[in-house]
């Protein structure tokens, strides 16, 4: 019943918005004919059993800690001062020397492509440390990655390759479970699938792009998540950006976390629904916004909202925090709203069985109305899925632009996901998947605790495999990334457009492929860098003893 309401408003939108190109009837017939027959055959009984099992396990769980330490005043002042210097000298530079790039004048009748400050920022602030980003690589981004060396002779305007390569420890890829491998069962089966199904089907899912491998992928995904059905798309970003407009229309209210990913924000803006933002992971603020929305209704008219959708992510990629899912679900039920959960970073990486935050908190997957996630991270592949009740998924199948117009997923890409998912579920007959999930959890806790002991500020939950290390100052992002590369460690720096101006950070992504020795090496180097560059900002008390790496549990 719940999903019926969710789809209701959007159906109206579709009818109003349907144009000549769009033919829902034809699509409907195909979808029924091709896919749904097999979906019906799935037995929901097994899933329910699994779900309740999860529920009983989760009750013993102790809530882990989350920290967002405040910046020391001195650092804040200095960061702003550095930024003002960059801006002033940048404008002086721009005034004196014409930038050596093609100039786009504001042509009459054309809207300028970029606003002036953005243009200035990317040319005179970002360009100065551009060598730390967009580095070309020439190997599989597994536990180690080979970086292509490059130099610049004109302060970051252009780069030249030196022809040298450098093998670095990879702390920059979302390779949470280490499935990005050039050999092993995943690679072998992917190669086999090319022989069977070719590289691409060159057609959309509604037309000729559906093959047995896609149906198998969707069935496996649904089984993996413990829900009725799932639909998959060839691109993770588009899964959010193109499917959110399907279930939302003007007159709907979206309550969105302030740190949500750009793809969610784009999707919400495209939908035309009213968007209200709540403070990051702040349940009191969420309840306030929800209560106001229910009491006040739509602005001016005070007509009740068609529906209210809460949009949150499982693990926030820039903050390293985890959504407070049980509280969100309680609020959602109390105010009769719907919940859209983006598990892009959490699926596979979180929870004792690797099923995402739903598994981590031990809640019932049926309590989340729309489960969205990507295959790009933990599964070492590409694409995204939406999972939930069969009715919801069928609705997406028929109405989604991503299913209707986009080319279907490439068979080897799909096979990589199927194989890695089976390994995680233990269907290959080994404990390999469970081992990887546990290795990731151990690596995460060890790395985070050691960093905390070091006295640097790290954000987020202590179980989240994304570890943002705050360096604040713009110049320190560049300095730290360069020093790390010189010591053969590849990590990602994150600066202003992606984070607030002041909160420059280095982001480490842990992987099950890392060993304790590799992490120890990184930590020793980081200790040295933190001392030298002054990154030990934390004013919290530190743990004095020796932090143990947890033993492997057989």
């Amino acid at each position, binding site marked *: 019943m719940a999903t019926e309401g969710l789809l209701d408003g959007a159906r109206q939108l579709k009818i109003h918005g349907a144009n000549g190109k769009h033919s829902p009837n034809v699509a409907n017939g195909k979808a029924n004919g091709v896919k749904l027959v097999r979906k019906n055959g799935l037995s929901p009984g097994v899933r329910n059993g699994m779900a309740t099992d999860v529920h009983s396990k989760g009750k013993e769980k102790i809530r882990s800690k989350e920290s967002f330490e405040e910046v020391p005043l001195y650092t804040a002042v200095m960061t702003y001062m550095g930024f003002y*210097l*960059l801006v002033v000298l940048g404008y002086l530079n721009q005034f004196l020397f014409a930038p050596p790039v093609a100039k786009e004048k504001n042509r009459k009748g054309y809207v300028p492509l970029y606003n002036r400050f953005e243009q200035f920022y990317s040319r005179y602030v970002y360009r100065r440390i551009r060598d730390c980003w967009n580095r070309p690589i020439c190997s599989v981004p597994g536990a180690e990655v080979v970086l292509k060396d490059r130099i610049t002779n004109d302060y970051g305007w252009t780069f030249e390759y030196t022809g040298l390569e450098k093998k670095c420890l990879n702390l920059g890829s979302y390779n949470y479970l280490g499935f990005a491998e050039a050999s092993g069962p995943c690679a072998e089966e992917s190669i086999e699938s090319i022989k069977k199904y070719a590289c691409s089907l060159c057609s959309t899912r509604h037309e000729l792009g559906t093959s047995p491998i896609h149906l198998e992928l969707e069935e496996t995904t649904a089984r993996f998540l413990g829900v009725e059905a799932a639909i998959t798309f060839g691109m993770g970003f588009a899964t959010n950006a193109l499917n959110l407009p399907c279930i939302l229309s003007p007159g709907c209210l979206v309550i969105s976390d302030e740190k949500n990913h750009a793809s969610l924000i784009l999707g919400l803006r495209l939908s035309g629904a009213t968007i209200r933002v709540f403070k990051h992971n702040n349940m009191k603020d969420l309840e306030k916004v929800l209560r106001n929305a229910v009491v006040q209704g739509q602005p001016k008219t005070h007509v009740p909202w068609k529906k209210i959708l809460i949009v949150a992510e499982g693990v926030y990629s820039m903050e390293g925090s985890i959504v407070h899912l049980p509280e969100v679900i309680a609020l959602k039920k109390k105010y009769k709203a719907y919940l859209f959960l983006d598990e892009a970073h959490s699926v596979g990486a979180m929870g004792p069985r690797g099923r995402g935050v739903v598994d981590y908190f031990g809640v019932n997957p049926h309590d989340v109305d729309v489960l969205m996630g990507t295959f790009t991270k933990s599964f070492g592949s590409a694409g995204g899925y939406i999972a939930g009740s069969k009715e919801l998924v069928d609705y997406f199948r028929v109405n989604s632009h991503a299913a209707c117009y986009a080319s279907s997923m490439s068979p080897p890409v799909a096979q990589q996901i199927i194989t890695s998912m089976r390994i995680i579920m233990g269907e290959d007959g080994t404990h390999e998947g469970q081992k990887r999930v546990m290795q990731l959890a151990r690596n995460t806790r060890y790395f985070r605790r050691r960093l905390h002991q070091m006295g640097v500020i790290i954000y987020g939950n202590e179980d989240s495999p994304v570890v943002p290390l705050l360096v604040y100052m713009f*110049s320190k992002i560049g*300095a730290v990334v360069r020093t790390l590369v010189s010591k053969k460690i590849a990590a990602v720096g994150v600066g202003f457009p992606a984070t607030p101006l002041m909160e420059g950070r280095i982001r480490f992504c842990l992987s099950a492929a890392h060993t304790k020795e590799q992490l120890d090496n990184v930590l020793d180097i980081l200790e040295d860098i933190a001392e030298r560059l002054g990154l030990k900002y934390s004013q919290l008390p530190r743990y004095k003893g020796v932090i143990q790496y947890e033993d492997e549990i057989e």
Partner: protein
Amino acid sequence: MLDFFRKKIAWLVLQYELITCLNMFEPWEQACLNATMLLVASLVSYSSYVYLPHYMMSLLNSIWSVVSTGEERLEYRYESG
């Protein structure tokens, strides 16, 4: 001992470079920035050498007159007015 100081000074220079983003600038911009910083520092030190003792004395005097009896304060105010 000498080595310790050398290290300390190197560390301080590095901090200065990081805070002013000096490591991100082109050479002429670095020269500009360093010259400005030097100018500001020299102005501050010069003015504090030349004017500060006098200011401090007059400040101490006025504080002293406030702290001592109220009548004197009144007198002072008439005088200055």
